Protein backbone atom coordinates (compact mmCIF):
# COMPACT_ATOMS: atom_id res chain seq x y z
CA UNK A 1 0.00 0.00 0.00
CA UNK A 2 2.83 2.33 0.88
CA UNK A 3 4.50 1.34 -2.37
CA UNK A 4 1.34 2.29 -4.26
CA UNK A 5 1.33 5.72 -2.64
CA UNK A 6 4.96 6.37 -3.52
CA UNK A 7 4.23 5.22 -7.07
CA UNK A 8 1.30 7.62 -7.38
CA UNK A 9 3.38 10.48 -6.00
CA UNK A 10 6.15 9.70 -8.46
CA UNK A 11 3.67 9.73 -11.34
CA UNK A 12 2.26 13.09 -10.29
CA UNK A 13 5.80 14.38 -9.98
CA UNK A 14 6.83 13.26 -13.46
CA UNK A 15 3.62 14.54 -15.04
CA UNK A 16 3.99 17.89 -13.30
CA UNK A 17 7.54 18.32 -14.52
CA UNK A 18 6.41 17.55 -18.07
CA UNK A 19 3.50 19.94 -17.58
CA UNK A 20 5.83 22.79 -16.61
CA UNK A 21 8.41 22.01 -19.29
CA UNK A 22 5.65 21.99 -21.90
CA UNK A 23 4.31 25.34 -20.75
CA UNK A 24 7.68 27.00 -20.45
CA UNK A 25 8.09 28.08 -24.12
CA UNK A 26 4.62 29.65 -24.07
CA UNK A 27 5.32 31.43 -20.84
CA UNK A 28 8.63 32.70 -22.16
CA UNK A 29 7.03 34.01 -25.37
CA UNK A 30 4.19 35.72 -23.53
CA UNK A 31 6.53 37.17 -20.97
CA UNK A 32 9.01 38.47 -23.53
CA UNK A 33 6.27 40.11 -25.58
CA UNK A 34 5.66 42.58 -22.77
CA UNK A 35 9.26 43.55 -22.34
CA UNK A 36 11.63 45.94 -23.94
CA UNK A 37 14.07 44.20 -26.24
CA UNK A 38 17.19 45.45 -24.49
CA UNK A 39 15.84 44.11 -21.22
CA UNK A 40 15.33 40.76 -22.89
CA UNK A 41 18.94 40.58 -23.92
CA UNK A 42 20.25 41.42 -20.48
CA UNK A 43 18.06 38.94 -18.65
CA UNK A 44 16.11 36.39 -20.67
CA UNK A 45 13.96 35.21 -17.82
CA UNK A 46 13.14 38.44 -16.07
CA UNK A 47 9.61 39.67 -15.58
CA UNK A 48 8.46 42.82 -17.34
CA UNK A 49 8.59 46.10 -15.41
CA UNK A 50 5.08 46.93 -16.43
CA UNK A 51 2.37 45.55 -18.67
CA UNK A 52 3.49 47.40 -21.75
CA UNK A 53 1.82 46.78 -25.08
CA UNK A 54 4.37 48.62 -27.22
CA UNK A 55 5.50 45.50 -28.99
CA UNK A 56 1.95 44.60 -29.88
CA UNK A 57 1.26 48.06 -31.26
CA UNK A 58 4.47 47.89 -33.24
CA UNK A 59 3.59 44.49 -34.67
CA UNK A 60 0.08 45.64 -35.50
CA UNK A 61 1.16 48.81 -37.33
CA UNK A 62 4.74 48.62 -38.51
CA UNK A 63 4.71 44.87 -38.76
CA UNK A 64 1.49 45.09 -40.77
CA UNK A 65 -0.14 42.48 -38.58
CA UNK A 66 -3.43 44.36 -38.72
CA UNK A 67 -3.71 43.58 -42.43
CA UNK A 68 -2.57 39.99 -42.00
CA UNK A 69 -4.99 39.40 -39.14
CA UNK A 70 -7.91 40.80 -41.11
CA UNK A 71 -6.96 38.72 -44.15
CA UNK A 72 -6.71 35.51 -42.19
CA UNK A 73 -9.92 36.25 -40.31
CA UNK A 74 -11.97 37.01 -43.41
CA UNK A 75 -10.60 34.04 -45.34
CA UNK A 76 -11.21 31.62 -42.49
CA UNK A 77 -14.68 33.02 -41.78
CA UNK A 78 -15.77 32.80 -45.42
CA UNK A 79 -14.24 29.37 -45.81
CA UNK A 80 -15.96 28.18 -42.66
CA UNK A 81 -19.37 29.41 -43.72
CA UNK A 82 -19.28 28.18 -47.29
CA UNK A 83 -17.39 24.93 -46.80
CA UNK A 84 -19.55 23.71 -43.92
CA UNK A 85 -22.77 24.50 -45.78
CA UNK A 86 -21.60 22.84 -49.00
CA UNK A 87 -20.17 19.86 -47.14
CA UNK A 88 -23.31 19.27 -45.07
CA UNK A 89 -25.50 19.51 -48.14
CA UNK A 90 -23.31 17.00 -49.92
CA UNK A 91 -23.17 14.80 -46.82
CA UNK A 92 -26.96 14.82 -46.57
CA UNK A 93 -27.36 13.73 -50.17
CA UNK A 94 -24.65 11.15 -49.81
CA UNK A 95 -25.90 9.70 -46.52
CA UNK A 96 -29.64 9.83 -47.01
CA UNK A 97 -30.60 10.13 -50.66
CA UNK A 98 -28.01 8.90 -53.13
CA UNK A 99 -26.43 6.43 -50.78
CA UNK A 100 -23.76 5.28 -53.18
CA UNK A 101 -20.43 4.12 -51.85
CA UNK A 102 -18.80 5.60 -54.94
CA UNK A 103 -20.14 9.05 -54.21
CA UNK A 104 -18.95 8.83 -50.63
CA UNK A 105 -15.55 7.53 -51.68
CA UNK A 106 -15.18 10.13 -54.38
CA UNK A 107 -15.95 13.05 -52.10
CA UNK A 108 -13.59 11.67 -49.47
CA UNK A 109 -10.68 11.50 -51.91
CA UNK A 110 -9.38 14.79 -50.60
CA UNK A 111 -8.45 12.98 -47.37
CA UNK A 112 -5.85 10.89 -49.14
CA UNK A 113 -4.28 13.63 -51.14
CA UNK A 114 -1.39 15.61 -49.64
CA UNK A 115 -1.67 19.36 -50.23
CA UNK A 116 1.72 19.21 -51.96
CA UNK A 117 0.08 17.72 -55.02
CA UNK A 118 -2.25 20.69 -55.29
CA UNK A 119 0.17 23.58 -54.91
CA UNK A 120 1.35 24.17 -58.43
CA UNK A 121 -1.97 23.37 -60.13
CA UNK A 122 -3.86 25.74 -57.83
CA UNK A 123 -1.42 28.48 -58.69
CA UNK A 124 -1.91 27.81 -62.39
CA UNK A 125 -5.69 27.66 -62.05
CA UNK A 126 -5.83 30.95 -60.19
CA UNK A 127 -3.59 32.54 -62.79
CA UNK A 128 -5.75 31.22 -65.60
CA UNK A 129 -8.95 32.44 -63.98
CA UNK A 130 -7.26 35.70 -63.17
CA UNK A 131 -8.01 35.26 -59.47
CA UNK A 132 -4.50 35.48 -58.03
CA UNK A 133 -5.07 38.93 -56.63
CA UNK A 134 -8.52 38.19 -55.31
CA UNK A 135 -9.74 36.98 -51.97
CA UNK A 136 -12.38 34.95 -53.80
CA UNK A 137 -9.77 32.82 -55.53
CA UNK A 138 -7.85 32.14 -52.36
CA UNK A 139 -11.03 31.34 -50.45
CA UNK A 140 -12.14 28.87 -53.13
CA UNK A 141 -8.88 26.98 -52.72
CA UNK A 142 -9.25 26.98 -48.95
CA UNK A 143 -12.82 25.68 -49.25
CA UNK A 144 -11.77 22.88 -51.55
CA UNK A 145 -8.85 21.85 -49.40
CA UNK A 146 -11.09 21.54 -46.33
CA UNK A 147 -14.05 20.01 -48.13
CA UNK A 148 -13.32 16.30 -47.86
CA UNK A 149 -12.56 16.41 -44.16
CA UNK A 150 -15.68 18.41 -43.33
CA UNK A 151 -17.71 16.12 -45.56
CA UNK A 152 -16.32 13.05 -43.83
CA UNK A 153 -17.06 14.29 -40.31
CA UNK A 154 -20.56 15.54 -41.13
CA UNK A 155 -21.39 12.41 -43.14
CA UNK A 156 -20.73 10.27 -40.08
CA UNK A 157 -23.12 12.45 -38.12
CA UNK A 158 -25.72 12.29 -40.88
CA UNK A 159 -25.90 8.53 -40.56
CA UNK A 160 -27.42 8.96 -37.11
CA UNK A 161 -30.46 10.90 -38.28
CA UNK A 162 -33.48 8.64 -37.80
CA UNK A 163 -35.32 7.99 -41.04
CA UNK A 164 -38.66 8.31 -39.26
CA UNK A 165 -38.06 11.98 -38.59
CA UNK A 166 -37.55 12.80 -42.24
CA UNK A 167 -40.55 10.71 -43.22
CA UNK A 168 -42.69 12.43 -40.61
CA UNK A 169 -41.63 15.81 -41.92
CA UNK A 170 -42.46 14.78 -45.48
CA UNK A 171 -45.88 13.61 -44.39
CA UNK A 172 -46.41 16.93 -42.65
CA UNK A 173 -45.80 18.58 -45.99
CA UNK A 174 -42.40 20.09 -45.28
CA UNK A 175 -40.30 20.63 -48.38
CA UNK A 176 -37.02 18.74 -48.60
CA UNK A 177 -35.08 21.95 -48.23
CA UNK A 178 -36.99 22.90 -45.10
CA UNK A 179 -36.52 19.41 -43.66
CA UNK A 180 -32.82 19.76 -44.17
CA UNK A 181 -32.48 23.09 -42.46
CA UNK A 182 -34.98 22.75 -39.65
CA UNK A 183 -34.78 19.06 -38.76
CA UNK A 184 -31.63 17.43 -40.04
CA UNK A 185 -29.08 20.13 -39.31
CA UNK A 186 -29.99 20.51 -35.64
CA UNK A 187 -29.54 16.76 -35.16
CA UNK A 188 -26.08 16.75 -36.68
CA UNK A 189 -24.94 19.72 -34.61
CA UNK A 190 -22.06 17.79 -32.95
CA UNK A 191 -20.70 16.82 -36.36
CA UNK A 192 -21.10 20.38 -37.57
CA UNK A 193 -19.31 21.63 -34.48
CA UNK A 194 -16.39 19.23 -34.86
CA UNK A 195 -16.05 19.97 -38.56
CA UNK A 196 -16.27 23.72 -37.96
CA UNK A 197 -13.72 23.84 -35.17
CA UNK A 198 -11.31 21.63 -37.11
CA UNK A 199 -11.71 23.81 -40.17
CA UNK A 200 -11.00 26.99 -38.21
CA UNK A 201 -7.94 25.49 -36.64
CA UNK A 202 -6.51 24.06 -39.89
CA UNK A 203 -7.32 27.06 -42.03
CA UNK A 204 -6.01 29.61 -39.54
CA UNK A 205 -2.70 27.78 -39.22
CA UNK A 206 -2.14 27.08 -42.93
CA UNK A 207 1.30 28.04 -44.11
CA UNK A 208 2.56 26.14 -47.14
CA UNK A 209 -0.66 26.72 -49.05
CA UNK A 210 -0.82 30.52 -48.74
CA UNK A 211 2.95 30.69 -49.15
CA UNK A 212 2.49 29.25 -52.62
CA UNK A 213 -0.71 30.89 -53.81
CA UNK A 214 -0.86 34.24 -52.02
CA UNK A 215 1.74 36.61 -53.38
CA UNK A 216 -0.06 39.90 -53.04
CA UNK A 217 1.14 41.64 -49.90
CA UNK A 218 -2.31 42.96 -49.13
CA UNK A 219 -3.78 39.48 -49.04
CA UNK A 220 -1.12 37.63 -47.10
CA UNK A 221 -1.99 35.57 -44.06
CA UNK A 222 -0.73 35.88 -40.50
CA UNK A 223 1.49 32.83 -40.94
CA UNK A 224 3.26 34.45 -43.86
CA UNK A 225 3.42 37.79 -42.08
CA UNK A 226 5.02 36.29 -39.01
CA UNK A 227 7.75 34.63 -41.03
CA UNK A 228 8.41 37.80 -42.97
CA UNK A 229 8.64 39.83 -39.78
CA UNK A 230 11.55 37.62 -38.89
CA UNK A 231 13.41 38.82 -41.97
CA UNK A 232 13.59 42.41 -40.89
CA UNK A 233 13.11 42.29 -37.14
CA UNK A 234 14.46 38.85 -36.32
CA UNK A 235 16.52 40.13 -33.42
CA UNK A 236 13.78 42.24 -31.86
CA UNK A 237 12.55 39.49 -29.57
CA UNK A 238 9.90 41.67 -27.95
CA UNK A 239 8.36 42.40 -31.32
CA UNK A 240 8.69 38.84 -32.61
CA UNK A 241 7.06 37.32 -29.55
CA UNK A 242 4.24 39.85 -29.76
CA UNK A 243 3.72 38.72 -33.35
CA UNK A 244 3.67 35.11 -32.23
CA UNK A 245 1.06 35.86 -29.58
CA UNK A 246 -1.18 37.72 -32.03
CA UNK A 247 -0.97 34.80 -34.45
CA UNK A 248 -1.78 32.29 -31.80
CA UNK A 249 -4.40 33.94 -29.59
CA UNK A 250 -7.56 33.13 -31.62
CA UNK A 251 -6.72 29.45 -31.77
CA UNK A 252 -5.82 29.34 -28.08
CA UNK A 253 -9.21 30.90 -27.33
CA UNK A 254 -10.99 28.35 -29.49
CA UNK A 255 -8.97 25.63 -27.81
CA UNK A 256 -9.82 26.83 -24.32
CA UNK A 257 -13.55 26.60 -24.92
CA UNK A 258 -13.89 24.03 -27.66
CA UNK A 259 -11.05 21.63 -26.97
CA UNK A 260 -13.25 18.57 -27.11
CA UNK A 261 -14.17 19.21 -30.75
CA UNK A 262 -10.55 19.42 -31.80
CA UNK A 263 -9.79 16.19 -29.98
CA UNK A 264 -12.81 14.54 -31.60
CA UNK A 265 -11.70 15.72 -35.01
CA UNK A 266 -8.12 14.61 -34.58
CA UNK A 267 -9.07 11.14 -33.38
CA UNK A 268 -11.77 10.66 -36.00
CA UNK A 269 -9.45 8.51 -38.02
CA UNK A 270 -9.50 10.80 -41.01
CA UNK A 271 -5.81 11.31 -41.42
CA UNK A 272 -5.78 14.62 -43.20
CA UNK A 273 -3.84 14.28 -46.43
Amino acid at each position, binding site marked *: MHKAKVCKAAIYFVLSILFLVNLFPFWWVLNTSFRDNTAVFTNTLGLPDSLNFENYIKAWDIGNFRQYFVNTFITVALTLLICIIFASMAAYVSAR*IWKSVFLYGFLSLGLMVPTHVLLIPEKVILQTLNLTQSRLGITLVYIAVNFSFSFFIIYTSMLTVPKELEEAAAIDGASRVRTFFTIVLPIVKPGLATASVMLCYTAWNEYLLPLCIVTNNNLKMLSQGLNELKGQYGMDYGLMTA*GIVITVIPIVLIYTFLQKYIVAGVTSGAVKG
Partner: protein
Amino acid sequence: MNKGKNLFAASFLAPGLIVFIGFIIIPIIMNFSYSLSEWDAIGSPEFIGLKNYIDIFTNDPGYWEAAKNNLIIVFFAFIVQNPVAFIIAWLVTRIRRFSKAYQSVFFLPVVISTVATATMFYIMLNSDVGVISKFLAMLGIEYAWLSDPKVVLVSVIAPQLWQYLGIHFIMFLGGIQAIENDVLESARIDGASTGCLLWRIIVPLSWPSIQMSLIYTFIGCLKTFDYSYIMTKGGPGNASSFIATILFKEGFMKNHYGYATAIAVTIFVYSLVFTLIFKTVTKKMDLN
Protein backbone atom coordinates in the same frame (compact mmCIF):
# COMPACT_ATOMS: atom_id res chain seq x y z
CA MET B 1 -42.00 11.89 -56.69
CA ASN B 2 -38.70 10.39 -57.67
CA LYS B 3 -37.95 13.18 -60.06
CA GLY B 4 -38.38 15.73 -57.29
CA LYS B 5 -36.04 13.75 -55.10
CA ASN B 6 -33.33 13.49 -57.73
CA LEU B 7 -33.60 17.14 -58.66
CA PHE B 8 -33.26 18.07 -55.02
CA ALA B 9 -30.29 15.76 -54.51
CA ALA B 10 -28.53 17.06 -57.59
CA SER B 11 -28.96 20.68 -56.66
CA PHE B 12 -27.87 20.08 -53.08
CA LEU B 13 -24.84 18.14 -54.17
CA ALA B 14 -23.85 20.51 -56.95
CA PRO B 15 -22.16 23.40 -55.13
CA GLY B 16 -19.77 21.25 -53.11
CA LEU B 17 -19.20 18.90 -56.02
CA ILE B 18 -18.32 21.72 -58.38
CA VAL B 19 -15.80 23.29 -56.02
CA PHE B 20 -14.39 19.87 -55.20
CA ILE B 21 -13.97 18.81 -58.81
CA GLY B 22 -12.70 22.20 -59.89
CA PHE B 23 -10.17 22.73 -57.13
CA ILE B 24 -9.21 19.23 -56.05
CA ILE B 25 -9.86 16.63 -58.75
CA ILE B 26 -8.79 18.74 -61.69
CA PRO B 27 -5.61 19.96 -59.94
CA ILE B 28 -4.68 16.36 -59.12
CA ILE B 29 -4.98 15.45 -62.78
CA MET B 30 -3.08 18.60 -63.73
CA ASN B 31 -0.32 17.67 -61.33
CA PHE B 32 0.13 14.25 -62.90
CA SER B 33 0.05 15.77 -66.35
CA TYR B 34 2.64 18.44 -65.57
CA SER B 35 4.89 15.85 -63.96
CA LEU B 36 5.22 14.26 -67.37
CA SER B 37 6.32 17.49 -68.98
CA GLU B 38 9.02 20.08 -68.95
CA TRP B 39 7.65 23.47 -68.00
CA ASP B 40 9.33 26.45 -66.44
CA ALA B 41 6.15 28.49 -66.06
CA ILE B 42 6.76 30.30 -69.32
CA GLY B 43 5.10 29.19 -72.52
CA SER B 44 3.40 25.84 -72.33
CA PRO B 45 4.28 22.42 -70.93
CA GLU B 46 6.29 20.18 -73.24
CA PHE B 47 5.64 16.47 -72.94
CA ILE B 48 8.79 14.54 -72.01
CA GLY B 49 7.37 11.33 -70.60
CA LEU B 50 9.01 9.96 -67.48
CA LYS B 51 12.15 12.05 -67.73
CA ASN B 52 11.40 14.04 -64.57
CA TYR B 53 11.03 10.85 -62.58
CA ILE B 54 14.20 9.39 -64.04
CA ASP B 55 16.01 12.59 -63.10
CA ILE B 56 14.71 12.38 -59.56
CA PHE B 57 15.91 8.83 -59.16
CA THR B 58 19.26 9.13 -60.89
CA ASN B 59 20.27 12.73 -61.06
CA ASP B 60 19.29 14.58 -57.90
CA PRO B 61 21.46 14.12 -54.81
CA GLY B 62 19.57 16.96 -53.10
CA TYR B 63 16.31 15.01 -53.28
CA TRP B 64 17.89 11.95 -51.74
CA GLU B 65 19.63 13.91 -49.02
CA ALA B 66 16.21 15.33 -48.19
CA ALA B 67 14.55 11.92 -48.39
CA LYS B 68 17.15 10.61 -45.97
CA ASN B 69 16.15 13.38 -43.58
CA ASN B 70 12.50 12.36 -43.91
CA LEU B 71 13.48 8.83 -42.93
CA ILE B 72 15.46 10.16 -39.99
CA ILE B 73 12.52 12.12 -38.62
CA VAL B 74 10.23 9.12 -39.10
CA PHE B 75 12.74 6.99 -37.25
CA PHE B 76 12.95 9.29 -34.25
CA ALA B 77 9.20 9.77 -34.24
CA PHE B 78 8.74 6.01 -34.06
CA ILE B 79 11.36 5.26 -31.43
CA VAL B 80 11.26 8.39 -29.27
CA GLN B 81 8.17 10.55 -29.76
CA ASN B 82 5.57 7.80 -29.90
CA PRO B 83 6.80 5.60 -27.03
CA VAL B 84 7.15 8.70 -24.84
CA ALA B 85 3.61 9.75 -25.81
CA PHE B 86 2.39 6.28 -24.95
CA ILE B 87 4.04 6.23 -21.56
CA ILE B 88 2.73 9.67 -20.70
CA ALA B 89 -0.76 8.59 -21.76
CA TRP B 90 -0.45 5.52 -19.60
CA LEU B 91 0.71 7.60 -16.63
CA VAL B 92 -2.27 9.88 -17.06
CA THR B 93 -4.62 6.92 -16.92
CA ARG B 94 -3.10 5.95 -13.58
CA ILE B 95 -4.05 9.14 -11.79
CA ARG B 96 -7.33 10.73 -10.98
CA ARG B 97 -6.77 14.35 -10.08
CA PHE B 98 -5.70 17.05 -12.55
CA SER B 99 -6.13 14.62 -15.42
CA LYS B 100 -7.96 17.17 -17.56
CA ALA B 101 -5.33 19.82 -16.85
CA TYR B 102 -2.50 17.51 -17.91
CA GLN B 103 -4.37 16.54 -21.06
CA SER B 104 -5.02 20.16 -21.99
CA VAL B 105 -1.40 21.16 -21.58
CA PHE B 106 0.06 18.15 -23.34
CA PHE B 107 -2.24 18.62 -26.31
CA LEU B 108 -1.89 22.42 -26.47
CA PRO B 109 1.22 22.59 -28.68
CA VAL B 110 -0.65 20.66 -31.37
CA VAL B 111 -3.12 23.46 -32.04
CA ILE B 112 -0.52 26.20 -32.21
CA SER B 113 0.45 27.31 -35.70
CA THR B 114 3.67 25.67 -36.87
CA VAL B 115 4.92 29.07 -37.95
CA ALA B 116 4.45 30.32 -34.41
CA THR B 117 6.24 27.38 -32.80
CA ALA B 118 8.98 27.30 -35.43
CA THR B 119 9.59 31.02 -34.94
CA MET B 120 9.54 30.47 -31.19
CA PHE B 121 12.25 27.83 -31.41
CA TYR B 122 14.16 29.90 -33.94
CA ILE B 123 14.41 32.61 -31.33
CA MET B 124 15.13 30.26 -28.46
CA LEU B 125 17.88 28.44 -30.33
CA ASN B 126 19.73 31.55 -31.35
CA SER B 127 23.38 30.79 -30.62
CA ASP B 128 24.12 33.97 -28.70
CA VAL B 129 21.03 34.86 -26.77
CA GLY B 130 18.50 32.08 -27.18
CA VAL B 131 17.07 30.70 -23.96
CA ILE B 132 17.48 27.07 -24.95
CA SER B 133 20.96 27.54 -26.41
CA LYS B 134 22.13 29.24 -23.26
CA PHE B 135 20.62 26.54 -21.09
CA LEU B 136 22.26 23.77 -23.09
CA ALA B 137 25.55 25.67 -23.08
CA MET B 138 25.36 25.65 -19.28
CA LEU B 139 25.20 21.86 -19.51
CA GLY B 140 28.25 21.91 -21.73
CA ILE B 141 26.40 21.29 -24.99
CA GLU B 142 27.32 24.21 -27.18
CA TYR B 143 26.52 24.36 -30.88
CA ALA B 144 25.46 26.80 -33.56
CA TRP B 145 22.03 25.18 -33.62
CA LEU B 146 20.75 26.89 -36.73
CA SER B 147 23.86 27.00 -38.86
CA ASP B 148 26.12 24.07 -38.02
CA PRO B 149 25.37 21.35 -40.58
CA LYS B 150 26.10 18.70 -37.99
CA VAL B 151 23.21 19.76 -35.77
CA VAL B 152 20.69 21.68 -37.91
CA LEU B 153 18.70 18.53 -38.47
CA VAL B 154 18.32 18.07 -34.72
CA SER B 155 17.21 21.71 -34.35
CA VAL B 156 14.59 21.22 -37.00
CA ILE B 157 13.33 17.78 -35.94
CA ALA B 158 13.16 18.08 -32.16
CA PRO B 159 10.63 20.95 -32.03
CA GLN B 160 8.29 19.14 -34.42
CA LEU B 161 8.41 15.96 -32.39
CA TRP B 162 7.68 18.07 -29.30
CA GLN B 163 4.76 19.81 -30.93
CA TYR B 164 3.00 16.74 -32.24
CA LEU B 165 3.63 14.50 -29.26
CA GLY B 166 0.24 15.68 -27.99
CA ILE B 167 -1.64 14.11 -30.90
CA HIS B 168 -0.19 10.70 -30.24
CA PHE B 169 -0.71 11.21 -26.54
CA ILE B 170 -4.43 11.79 -27.12
CA MET B 171 -4.72 8.83 -29.48
CA PHE B 172 -3.02 6.49 -27.04
CA LEU B 173 -5.03 7.90 -24.15
CA GLY B 174 -8.21 7.00 -25.99
CA GLY B 175 -6.84 3.58 -26.84
CA ILE B 176 -5.79 2.77 -23.30
CA GLN B 177 -8.98 4.09 -21.75
CA ALA B 178 -10.96 1.86 -24.06
CA ILE B 179 -9.49 -1.22 -22.43
CA GLU B 180 -12.02 -2.70 -20.07
CA ASN B 181 -11.12 -2.51 -16.44
CA ASP B 182 -12.02 -6.17 -15.82
CA VAL B 183 -9.19 -7.29 -18.04
CA LEU B 184 -6.67 -5.20 -16.13
CA GLU B 185 -8.12 -6.16 -12.76
CA SER B 186 -7.96 -9.88 -13.38
CA ALA B 187 -4.40 -9.56 -14.62
CA ARG B 188 -3.42 -7.70 -11.49
CA ILE B 189 -5.14 -10.28 -9.31
CA ASP B 190 -3.19 -12.95 -11.14
CA GLY B 191 -0.10 -11.17 -9.90
CA ALA B 192 1.06 -9.41 -13.03
CA SER B 193 3.72 -6.81 -12.36
CA THR B 194 3.26 -3.32 -13.72
CA GLY B 195 5.82 -3.84 -16.47
CA CYS B 196 4.26 -7.11 -17.50
CA LEU B 197 0.81 -5.53 -17.42
CA LEU B 198 1.96 -2.72 -19.62
CA TRP B 199 3.86 -4.74 -22.16
CA ARG B 200 1.73 -7.85 -22.39
CA ILE B 201 -1.74 -6.46 -22.01
CA ILE B 202 -2.07 -2.71 -22.40
CA VAL B 203 0.08 -2.33 -25.50
CA PRO B 204 -1.56 -5.16 -27.45
CA LEU B 205 -5.05 -4.06 -26.46
CA SER B 206 -4.43 -0.47 -27.54
CA TRP B 207 -3.34 -1.72 -30.95
CA PRO B 208 -6.05 0.23 -32.88
CA SER B 209 -4.77 3.51 -31.49
CA ILE B 210 -1.18 2.47 -32.19
CA GLN B 211 -2.13 1.78 -35.78
CA MET B 212 -3.71 5.20 -36.15
CA SER B 213 -0.61 6.76 -34.61
CA LEU B 214 1.79 4.93 -36.92
CA ILE B 215 -0.01 5.98 -40.09
CA TYR B 216 -0.34 9.53 -38.85
CA THR B 217 3.37 9.63 -38.01
CA PHE B 218 4.60 8.34 -41.33
CA ILE B 219 2.38 10.52 -43.48
CA GLY B 220 2.95 13.58 -41.31
CA CYS B 221 6.72 13.18 -41.44
CA LEU B 222 6.56 12.64 -45.19
CA LYS B 223 4.93 16.02 -45.68
CA THR B 224 6.96 18.09 -43.23
CA PHE B 225 7.96 21.50 -44.53
CA ASP B 226 7.24 24.41 -42.22
CA TYR B 227 9.87 23.94 -39.53
CA SER B 228 12.87 23.53 -41.78
CA TYR B 229 11.80 26.33 -44.11
CA ILE B 230 11.19 28.76 -41.28
CA MET B 231 14.13 27.90 -39.04
CA THR B 232 16.91 27.25 -41.52
CA LYS B 233 15.40 27.48 -45.02
CA GLY B 234 16.53 23.89 -45.38
CA GLY B 235 20.16 24.79 -45.12
CA PRO B 236 23.02 24.97 -44.96
CA GLY B 237 22.84 23.42 -48.43
CA ASN B 238 20.31 20.64 -47.99
CA ALA B 239 21.39 19.58 -44.53
CA SER B 240 18.01 20.28 -42.98
CA SER B 241 15.85 19.94 -46.08
CA PHE B 242 12.97 17.53 -46.52
CA ILE B 243 11.35 16.33 -49.73
CA ALA B 244 8.73 19.06 -49.44
CA THR B 245 11.51 21.65 -49.12
CA ILE B 246 13.00 20.44 -52.38
CA LEU B 247 9.54 20.59 -53.96
CA PHE B 248 9.15 24.19 -52.86
CA LYS B 249 12.59 25.23 -54.01
CA GLU B 250 12.21 23.60 -57.40
CA GLY B 251 8.61 24.65 -57.98
CA PHE B 252 8.35 28.07 -56.42
CA MET B 253 11.85 29.41 -56.36
CA LYS B 254 13.21 27.99 -59.60
CA ASN B 255 9.81 27.66 -61.32
CA HIS B 256 10.55 24.12 -62.50
CA TYR B 257 6.86 23.23 -62.56
CA GLY B 258 7.32 19.94 -64.35
CA TYR B 259 10.02 18.67 -62.02
CA ALA B 260 8.33 19.91 -58.87
CA THR B 261 5.02 18.26 -59.69
CA ALA B 262 6.89 15.00 -60.22
CA ILE B 263 8.35 15.40 -56.72
CA ALA B 264 4.82 15.97 -55.41
CA VAL B 265 3.74 12.73 -57.06
CA THR B 266 6.54 10.83 -55.32
CA ILE B 267 5.29 12.13 -51.97
CA PHE B 268 1.77 11.05 -52.86
CA VAL B 269 2.91 7.62 -53.99
CA TYR B 270 5.03 7.03 -50.90
CA SER B 271 2.06 7.75 -48.63
CA LEU B 272 -0.26 5.52 -50.67
CA VAL B 273 2.23 2.66 -50.78
CA PHE B 274 2.90 2.91 -47.06
CA THR B 275 -0.82 2.94 -46.22
CA LEU B 276 -1.43 -0.04 -48.51
CA ILE B 277 1.43 -2.12 -47.14
CA PHE B 278 0.56 -1.16 -43.59
CA LYS B 279 -3.10 -2.09 -43.97
CA THR B 280 -2.22 -5.41 -45.61
CA VAL B 281 0.32 -6.34 -42.96
CA THR B 282 -1.94 -5.39 -40.07
CA LYS B 283 -4.85 -7.28 -41.59
CA LYS B 284 -2.70 -10.39 -41.60
CA MET B 285 -1.65 -9.72 -38.02
CA ASP B 286 -5.22 -9.14 -36.88
CA LEU B 287 -6.27 -12.45 -38.36
CA ASN B 288 -3.60 -14.16 -36.28
